């Protein structure tokens, strides 16, 4: 995938729609990221942390039972095996190193399911940064365990009571904090959203998923790329990182959104959170709340690069409902002994459906990014299933 234009555009999407107070900070960040990304010593330091701290490279696992049942070859990129339990650590280690390099000692983040918050708190603890995590009050309640983990890691967790009290509102309050603290504070956005350079920068930090997976899939598939590459999409960071590795492959790219938060599927273009992208909106342009079983995908927007990939037809975006997700979750547990997070269970839910309808023909090779492990969701699922 190409880098964005100088004004941070992927086609018509992206940009830097932030209050004037933050414009200089975004420009400074863009400059710092570009220098760091091209600096071998920064890359070496990051690669070293990814290898010896986060546990990369993560393996690709072939699902033997499930593949047999579905009549396809299903490969999983195991981001659930990262330290802290999801792909979020890839981005956070990069941004925390960048914050240190920029001399910012205060590290703030928003979180939905808590995975990005936990990863941020972890990186801050490791690198000696002060960490503040904004989390919607609703999510604080449904992800109690992650809140406690963040506190153990030394982070302050601020419960956000504005708006719908979920991820969108956590981003609003993190932005409000940053407007007031921009001179001393680094804002670590957890997905491929926000003003330029965040969507590009976060994709670059996450592309390790796709770059590794491309090579690993070829080992399984006699040098071939998979027919279909699938990832779940809220803001879309694991999908962006995955797709980046396969953009020039012949593989069909599929992003899977929750049906109650399908910004690419049901949204329209708008300008929120610093970017022009697709958002769920009412007829006046007020942003609507996203609803799904997974807090991590409860975002009414999507990263601008995904809006662009949809517009040019390079990737397609499908949606699944909560019931399909629960079935997919249980099926992966029972057939492969892998407990996925509810977020990547969306990707699997689409695969199960598409195999049934024939959209994925028998004999296809399919690679799916399993973006995180499901331990955080067990209590909620126990309640639902009982």
């Amino acid at each position: 995938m190409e880098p964005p234009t100088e004004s941070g555009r992927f086609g018509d999407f992206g940009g830097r729609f932030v209050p004037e107070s933050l414009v200089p900070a975004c420009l400074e960040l863009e400059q710092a990221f570009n220098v760091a990304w091209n600096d071998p010593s920064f890359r070496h330091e990051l690669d070293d942390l990814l290898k010896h701290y986060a546990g990369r490279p993560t393996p690709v696992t072939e699902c033997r039972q499930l593949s047999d049942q579905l009549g396809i070859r299903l490969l999983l990129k195991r981001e659930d095996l990262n330290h802290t339990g999801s792909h979020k650590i890839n981005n956070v280690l990069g941004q925390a190193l960048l914050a240190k390099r920029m001399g910012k000692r205060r590290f703030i983040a928003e979180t939905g399911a808590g995975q990005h918050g936990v990863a941020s708190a972890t990186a801050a603890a490791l690198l000696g940064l002060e960490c503040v995590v904004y989390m919607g009050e609703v999510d604080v309640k449904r992800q109690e365990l992650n809140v406690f983990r963040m506190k153990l890691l030394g982070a302050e967790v601020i419960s956000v009571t504005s708006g719908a009290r979920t991820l969108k509102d956590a981003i609003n309050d993190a932005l409000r904090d940053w407007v007031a603290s921009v001179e001393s504070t680094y804002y670590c956005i957890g997905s491929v959203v926000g003003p330029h350079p965040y969507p590009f920068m976060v994709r670059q930090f996450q592309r390790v998923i796709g770059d590794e997976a491309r090579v690993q899939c070829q080992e399984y598939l006699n040098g071939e790329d998979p027919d279909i590459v699938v990832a779940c999409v809220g803001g879309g960071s694991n999908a962006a990182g995955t797709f980046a590795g396969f953009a020039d492959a012949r593989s069909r790219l599929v992003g899977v959104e929750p049906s109650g938060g399908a910004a690419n599927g049901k949204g329209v273009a708008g300008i929120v959170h610093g970017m022009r992208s697709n958002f769920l909106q009412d007829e006046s342009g007020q942003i609507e709340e996203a609803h799904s079983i997974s807090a991590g995908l409860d975002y009414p927007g999507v990263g601008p690069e995904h809006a662009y990939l949809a517009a040019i037809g390079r990737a397609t975006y499908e949606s699944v409902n909560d019931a399909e997700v629960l079935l997919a979750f249980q099926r992966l547990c029972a057939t492969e002994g892998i407990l996925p997070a509810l977020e990547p269970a969306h990707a699997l839910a689409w695969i199960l459906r598409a195999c049934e309808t024939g959209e994925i023909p028998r004999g296809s090779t399919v690679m799916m990014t399993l973006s995180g492990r499901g331990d955080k969701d067990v209590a909620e699922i126990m309640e639902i299933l009982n």
Partner: protein
Amino acid sequence: MSDRTIGPLERPLRAVRDSGRKLIVPYVTGGLDDNWIDVVHALAEAGANAIEVGIPFSDPVMDGPIIQAASVRALERGTTPQSVISELAGLDVGVPIAVMTYTNLIAHAGYHRMAQSLAAANIAGAILPDLPLDEAAEWMAEASAATIDAVQLVAPTTPDERLVRICEASKGFVYAVGLLGVTGERTEVASSALVIARRCQLVTDLPVLVGVGVSNAEQAVTICEEADGVVVGSALIRRLLDGAGPEGAADFISEIRLALDQRWPAGE
């Protein structure tokens, strides 16, 4: 100044400024209560030089808790951009009205259509705090074509070279954000408010108004030592949320008017 036309927001503000008096621009959230139009009338009568009407948005990132609460209340009452504009259409309170809102509501309607409908409602200006200069060209062209003054904002973090460009592009007045932070009341005037006003005065002939954090008459006087005037939002909205009504709103703005006029009477 020969190469630029003076718009409907700038003209009266410039006239007052040139007379030696200071400017007060109060902010009220459109659709806040049934009587919000009465509040607009009362503010004008109390000596406001222009009135900033907020079109409430679901995700107001430049606003602190008070204006967020006002936005929620207005939205819960069913307020829409169109309902605010319709209620303002044909209103003549003797001073210009500028709308303040977020870019998505303008973009959703379409820049062209929104500029035309603001102009049709006799609205003089528009302030979009999340549309920085680099992204504003298309909107500014549409606003200009519709004779809407598109006000630009500068912040304490704006570098000098950029400050010049923003002041050159701004229409109506220059909105100087007085501190690093979102809207809300503050116990003291931030030193950054005086600094940013002074920096603008050095590079522009437009009226320079400081907003964000201007909480009472005393603070307004302090700021106007450097600025041409103040925008007063949260301090007024808090009173309205507490039930002050049009009279209470007028009393508060009259207090600021009096304090500024005592220090800077006309003709000096």
